């Protein structure tokens, strides 16, 4: 509990540029509960950081759309697979 308050207080003492870096870190490696609380409180009253949070969420959603589009693409066409099989087999045996 003490750690939670310490983390939240540390985050609340940060500047907006540091909050921006913290939001990016959240997407990569996650934050502690206290850091999340501090960030949530800050974004409640900071318009700039709230806008950044929304932008990052929109970017994640777009990346998700692109991921689904790539996943839905057809795989190797049979004729390409056949050509590649012959070529890589020959090269691999060299």
């Amino acid at each position, binding site marked *: 509990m003490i750690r939670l308050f310490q983390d939240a207080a540390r985050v609340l003492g940060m500047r907006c540029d540091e909050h921006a870096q913290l939001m990016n870190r959240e997407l990569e490696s996650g934050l502690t509960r206290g850091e999340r609380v501090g960030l949530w409180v800050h974004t409640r009253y900071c318009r700039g950081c709230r806008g950044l949070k929304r932008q990052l969420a929109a970017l994640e959603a777009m990346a998700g759309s692109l991921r689904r589009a790539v996943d839905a693409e057809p795989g190797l066409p049979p004729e390409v*697979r056949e050509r590649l099989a012959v070529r890589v087999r020959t090269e691999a045996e060299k």
Partner: protein
Amino acid sequence: MLGTTPEQVEAADADEASPVPSPGPGSEVRRALVESWLRDHGDALWRYAMARTRHPETAEDLVQSTLLAAVSAASVVPTPAARVWLLGVMSHKIADHYRAQHRRPSAGAPHRTDDPDHEPADAPGQGRFTAHGMWVRAPAELPAPDARATHAEQSAALRACMEKLPPTLDQVFWLREVMGVSADQVCASLRISAANLWQRMHRARTALRECLEAGGEGGAAERGSGEHRGGEERRR
């Protein structure tokens, strides 16, 4: 565990005087290995190559060169992580492909984000922030998910901006966010630290947000060399 990293594959490729070290697997094993990769991971490699180049002949060349480079360097039978490792090899091949096609114009070009020392615009005291770390201009609204723009339109907008990213940023963003490779696996595959990956992702997101905010016209384009790699598709 694979015995070689994608960077070592690149190094082996580049060293034409001494092609492949002999202690690797024998030709029978190599053939079986490359056939199994083509069978099990060919579709994933093809989708990745097609998504990046949108050109079937280039994609076919990339799949072939990836498989051959990988089998030349693999010293032991792969684990289930083979797909991620192969995607890592392919990401280097794709970066090489674009470097060969579009040499960056001038080393002194402003806002080059492929400079490893370049700080992102969100870094303290830079870009959108004052010297005191306050916003100069609040980030604007991007197209909201499930709003008027369809998923296809959103994908196209993002892809257009990604094509303007420098190769080092483009590579990690594709692997992490589009191909769904975990952070640990990207770090292992590209042989970079977690901090380096985090920094690259931060820079990529910053450039992409700015590009999207500018409607696909600014941001990443200014931050890279000014060349648009999507030009490959248009020229064909």
